[in-house]
């Protein structure tokens, strides 16, 4: 039994739960495999027969449009049967209930679960519980991880910027509550990006963030200076009610990405956002819709990356 619950004894990927702890070679293999699936999405028939006859259950305990839809499209383009379940969080407050749901769906001959849950560790719990032939993909758990988002961001960076070893990447915004940021930081450092920065007010940074191998900035102009890639995080409106931030307007003034602030980055820097965007809060429309934005290609590449992950898991 391998120490990492995501890996088989031979080092191949059995589940995708977090990028943390995955070797660089495996991340590169996922990205290379995804390149092959980009070509599939250009075919006249945008479908390959790899997962014919497999049943993939999208278990979404939290609302999602982009992630759920791209997982669904990815599974369908692999010829799998996709079953979408949107389960209200209220009916799923106990761990036993979650595993009961999983057992019932397993009895319906599920081959893979794609899980989103507000509770950190939910996908791990399911992965530990399921039979050996069933695979689990974490589509976002609490504040913990969102590995396919991290991977599609790496894929987008590689597509636009080439190799990782000479890049400077800045992640801006609510790192504290962001599972996306954690997955991105793990991926960027594993892939050998020499300089990863986070830019945020102190109240939106987790304690000990510097131990993840990032440089911390509180000032946008200083943090964005000379970067190749700017990743803007969504400011979650529900966080506004607390004492962490004065107001969306004030947040925008200091941390919203405007053309003026973006001018501090390299002239050919790309701007990314995992969506959904709050225009006028964390990002100015002129930037979101501007020539440096690769926000929509991120969504498109998300399909190829999820196809790569699902086909690799199903074959291992």
């Amino acid at each position, binding site marked *: 039994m391998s120490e990492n619950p995501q890996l088989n004894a031979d080092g191949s990927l059995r589940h995708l739960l977090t990028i943390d702890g995955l070797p660089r070679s495996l991340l590169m293999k996922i990205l290379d*495999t995804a390149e*092959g699936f980009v070509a*599939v999405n250009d075919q*006249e028939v945008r*479908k390959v027969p790899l997962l014919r006859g497999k049943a993939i259950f999208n278990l979404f305990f939290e609302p999602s449009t982009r992630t759920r839809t791209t997982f669904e499209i990815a599974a369908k383009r692999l010829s799998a049967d996709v079953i979408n379940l949107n389960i209200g969080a209220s009916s799923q407050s106990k761990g036993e209930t979650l595993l009961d749901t999983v057992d019932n769906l397993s009895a319906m001959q599920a081959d893979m679960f794609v899980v989103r849950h507000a509770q950190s560790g939910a996908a791990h719990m399911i992965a530990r519980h399921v039979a050996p032939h069933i695979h689990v993909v974490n589509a976002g758990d609490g504040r913990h991880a969102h590995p396919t988002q991290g991977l599609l961001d790496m894929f987008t960076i590689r597509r636009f910027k080439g190799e990782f070893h000479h890049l400077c990447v800045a992640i801006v915004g609510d790192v504290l509550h962001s599972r996306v940021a954690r997955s991105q930081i793990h991926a960027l450092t594993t892939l050998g990006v020499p300089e990863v920065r986070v830019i945020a007010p102190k109240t939106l940074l987790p304690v000990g963030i510097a131990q993840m191998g990032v440089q911390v900035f509180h000032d946008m102009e200083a943090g964005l200076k000379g970067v190749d890639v700017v990743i803007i995080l969504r400011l979650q409106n529900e966080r506004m009610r607390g004492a962490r931030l004065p107001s969306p307007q004030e947040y925008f003034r200091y941390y919203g990405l405007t053309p003026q602030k973006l001018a501090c980055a390299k002239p050919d820097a790309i701007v990314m956002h995992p969506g959904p965007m709050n225009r006028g809060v964390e990002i100015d429309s002129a930037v979101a819709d501007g020539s440096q934005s690769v926000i929509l290609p991120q969504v498109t590449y998300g399909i190829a990356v999820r196809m790569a992950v699902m086909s690799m898991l199903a*074959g291992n």
Partner: protein
Amino acid sequence: MTLPDPDVLIHQLADRIRPSLSAETVLVGMHTGGLWAAECMHPLLDAGMPHGSLDISFYRDDFEEKGLHDQIRPTHLPFEVEGRDILLVDDVLYTGRSVRAAMNALFDYGRPSRIRLAVLIDRLGDRQLPIAADYIGAGLRVPSGKHIHLVRAADGELQLKLVDVE
């Protein structure tokens, strides 16, 4: 066992294929050995002919046993497949399963008017599907437990190799 020189086979194949080319013919090499052979054949046939590469990993029939192929290379077909006369090139025709997968893959890009198959080596007596090549460099009987394939040196020189099946 002495193996033929792939360069000689490629020249012989090109000489036989050349009279049959039309304006609709395109060259498609199957990753990886077939692509190397097609790249060598291309200037010998018609340097202006459209050509591309095909990776069959997503169409293989052994996914259940072996999983996804270890190395996926993007398929690159920079032309319309619909209505074209496709000359498919592979290094070795063995069970016929790769060619079956290649034809399925091509049809997901469009409906070709014709597909012809050219191979450097036809491994005789080991076919598992009703598939035959239109152009054959050489027919060989290879002992079971052996695998024959094309390798390319750093200087681009091609060589056929016989290796033990793992």
